[in-house]
């Protein structure tokens, strides 16, 4: 049995940008993932308001969607973002961490379709939602086997 928390720790450690933003993987498995990112002064997008930049929200959304793909029961060996759309509903409250939750709603042989929601501490109102498609990479051997 794989130690989930150890796996989560390793996932973040293996992604330098996720580490740089202080991301923490809090849930993973069965094509779903949740990642939290703490508030920090260096990710502020507007000094006048102290609101974090949309780019940092993109990074946590993208990481979380990728983690969800990797955790899918079809066990992809790798994934890359094909496209990702983010809708920004409201500004994240300054000082609060942002948590993204992603779900794979369809995983095919080559492509995974993922949706995600980001919230701050007020979990009832989303800060942003995301929808994207990701590549599903499998070991070269398994790919040729399926094509036969």
């Amino acid at each position, binding site marked *: 049995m794989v130690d989930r928390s150890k796996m989560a720790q390793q996932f973040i450690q293996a992604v*330098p*940008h*996720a580490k740089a933003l202080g991301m923490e993987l809090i849930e993973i498995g069965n094509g779903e993932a949740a990642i939290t990112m703490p508030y920090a002064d260096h990710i*502020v*997008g507007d000094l006048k308001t102290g609101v974090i930049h949309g780019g940092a929200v993109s990074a946590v959304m*993208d*990481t979380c969607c990728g983690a969800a793909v990797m955790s899918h029961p079809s066990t992809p060996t790798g994934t*890359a973002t094909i496209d990702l759309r983010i809708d920004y509903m409201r500004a994240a409250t300054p000082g609060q961490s942002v948590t993204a939750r992603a779900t794979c709603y369809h995983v095919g042989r080559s492509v995974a379709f993922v949706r995600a929601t980001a919230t701050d501490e007020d979990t009832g109102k989303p800060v942003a939602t995301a929808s994207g498609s990701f590549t599903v990479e499998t070991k070269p051997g398994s790919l040729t086997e399926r094509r036969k």
Partner: protein
Amino acid sequence: MMGKSEPKQLVEQRRDAALAALLQGVPYIQFMGIEFDRHGDELTGVLRFDDKLIGNPFLPALHGGVTSAFLEVTSIITLSLLHLWGRIETGEIDLEKMPLEQLPNLPKTIDFTADYLRSGRAQNAYARATVARAGRRYASVQSTAWQDNQAKPFAQASGHFLMPPAPEVVRDD
């Protein structure tokens, strides 16, 4: 009498000052290591490579979030400057009289869609944004990022932005 070239030179200096002031208001831009090259009204975003921008250390490749953020930053700054220049030219804003810390607010992102064409490699990246339409309230901006070869972009994006409200008019009522 002042030489004909002097006012133009002043315009350039004010543009640089306005750009620097805009960038200073965004700590995230410094964290990401994004700089801008300006030639007249043409703006190129430069993402200085750093290990912390890596998403996949095995390739290695830039993080998708980094690529998207770089395009979003380039879109916002390009849009802000265009908006600012327009208002300077109509005389709505006088940069000489306006303290730089009172520059208009930045546009807010409504939505942003990034297409990843190929993986971003562990090196500097460049981006340019084109404002397809900038209305009073909404703007539509397209952007492209490349590395070695501008003809082979590694990502492109399209975003919609909410423009900052025009400065309040003092009313007597």
